[in-house]
């Protein structure tokens, strides 16, 4: 058993354990912290697959951005030390059943399907290659989706400001 294998299974255990705790714990702040560890575990898996750029993006955007945003919204909307209300056990049972059945179905399909890799020479996912491809306007370039995502981010920015703006009291 090589070191790489051991690291893989440790990352997998960290990710899955934190994910389960994030959706089952009744203290909402702990749920946010467990979500943070799940996201770090997924970033570690990206590092393990040697996709360093996407792992860095994952850490910057998810761990640095979205989790902090979620923690701030918890501070703004929850009373300190208050537990989440207990859910009905029938609802917990049925959602666990639905999730487990879906998982069993997907894993059954995956285990029966044999994937075949292409034998073509691989491209290293270095930052230079990613940059050329992302702003390329040739066949297979991603310049148009890049611009569309920029517009989407601008729209989301304006939308957030408009939604969260305190509406002025009606002036007479």
């Amino acid at each position, binding site marked *: 058993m090589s070191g790489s294998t051991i690291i893989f299974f440790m990352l997998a255990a960290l990710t899955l354990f934190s994910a389960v705790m994030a959706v089952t714990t009744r203290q909402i702040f702990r749920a946010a912290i467990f979500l943070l560890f799940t996201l770090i575990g997924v970033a570690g898996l990206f590092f393990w697959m040697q996709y360093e750029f996407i792992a860095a993006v994952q850490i910057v*955007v998810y761990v640095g951005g979205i989790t902090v945003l979620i923690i701030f919204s918890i501070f703004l909307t929850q009373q300190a030390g208050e537990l989440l209300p207990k859910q009905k056990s029938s609802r917990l049972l049925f959602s666990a059943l639905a999730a*487990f059945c879906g998982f069993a179905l997907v894993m059954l399909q995956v285990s029966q399907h044999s994937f075949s890799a292409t034998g073509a020479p691989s491209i290293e996912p270095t930052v230079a290659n990613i940059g050329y491809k992302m702003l390329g306007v040739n066949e297979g370039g991603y310049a148009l989706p890049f611009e569309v995502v920029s517009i989407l981010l601008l729209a989301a920015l304006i939308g957030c400001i408009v939604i969260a703006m305190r509406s002025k009291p009606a002036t007479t």
Partner: protein
Amino acid sequence: MMEPGLYHLLFISAALFFIGVFGFFSRRNLVTMLMSIELILNSVNLNFIAFNKYLWPNKMDGLFFAIFIIAIAAAEAAVAIAIIINLYRSHGSIDVEQAEELKN
């Protein structure tokens, strides 16, 4: 012990997805539901990167899909949190059972 490969990553990804689905079904608090959605989006990213690495290493399409999904997830989280804070201001609660009317 087998060397970890595509099937292990697909297992982790599917498990993460359905943990997120479980959280989405069982929670009634909007912030925790948003956290479940983040789990689901992350599992999809893991799937794209795993397929890109093990099946099509001569292309980078999976990587770009993952990057765009991360960008869209960030925008979605920001908008969702703006909506949640607005809902808290008008209803005093972010439980979905108590948000029955959209306008008050």
